[in-house]
């Protein structure tokens, strides 16, 4: 135990700690942008609900989405969702190191594999949707 008087305990601010260093702000940016992933899921759910309500409701919703406000919302949601996804892809080598004999696969390979998976899933979805 400590000797010679009472040690001084410095309090950590529960609300302002992330302002102390840019690395904490980067962390908060990664975490907070998950809200936009949720928002994107919500738009998809609403789309399904309108679809279940019939052709007119569905087309009215699509019309709203393709208006200036709808497009602006989707651009913002897409930008933050991409940022969120990329920030996670970029830390995957820490969680999923791949050891081959005495060597570890370079982190860039693991990150690239995630991007490749993302690209393949996107193309597959677009093919299913009849875009190509």
């Amino acid at each position, binding site marked *: 135990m400590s000797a*010679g008087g009472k*040690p*001084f305990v*410095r309090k*950590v601010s529960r609300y302002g*700690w992330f302002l102390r260093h840019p690395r*904490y702000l980067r962390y908060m940016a990664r975490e907070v942008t998950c809200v936009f992933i949720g928002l994107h899921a919500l738009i998809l759910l609403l789309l399904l609900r309108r679809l279940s309500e019939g052709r007119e409701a569905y087309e009215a919703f699509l019309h709203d989405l393709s208006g200036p406000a709808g497009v602006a919302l989707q651009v913002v949601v897409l930008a933050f969702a991409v940022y969120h996804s990329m920030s996670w892809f970029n830390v995957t080598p*820490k969680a999923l190191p791949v*050891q081959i004999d005495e*060597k570890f696969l370079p982190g860039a390979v693991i990150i690239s594999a995630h991007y490749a998976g993302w690209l393949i899933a996107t193309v597959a979805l677009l093919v299913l949707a009849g875009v190509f």
Partner: protein
Amino acid sequence: MSERIVEMEVLRYNPETDAEPRFQRYSVPCMNEWVVLDALNHIKETIDPTLSYRWSCHMAVCGSCGMMINGEPKLACKAFLRSYDWLIRIEPLSHFPIQRDLVTVIDDFVTKLRRVKPYLIPKEDKPVAEGEFRQSPAELKTYKQYTLCINCMLCYAACPEYGLTTGFIGPAAISLAHRYNQDSRDGGREERQQVIAANEGVWECSFVGACSEVCPEHVDPAGALQQVKIKSTVDWYQEHLMPWSKK
């Protein structure tokens, strides 16, 4: 060898006389190739012998001289003065109580380190006559990175989770547990899991990653903690979905 005056603001705290810490400024004539620890030694030897701080090896091996240098957790023996402007602010490591000046109370870390059993627990007793526990270079490589930890506690000072949740076992202790869990000669994982897979173990970590950024030995504690999370999750699924697979 060029000399220049460096202004150093050092946080001082005397538990017998001070209600709270205060900064004290020193003008220190320094050689350009000095590190912060050299400047502190110069203060202690020629300006103010009452200044207290920990140090020992002066070569980034002992892990004693960790402190906040301009707000960043650093080893004072590895922080070259030429990397800083004319004013350098020195504080004790964040998140630890201050015992005196730059000396912190590290009991909490030492207790947690003991709890994770950071030593080999052989799978079975083997008489010496049967020879050594052999290990291939590939098996060594699996955990070698985590053996480099020097217990300097910079990762604890950088970790906001540890600052907010004092019960958190923390980066270095969990990384060392992971080091032994990954060792092919070890059989103590289940004992360590009781501590590191609990709420105050890895699940307090939200992967800020600051621990790995400040680690002077490139141990990558953040990586170790994420790997422990994945292995613990696999354990949970195995236990609940395939209870028969449990030994």
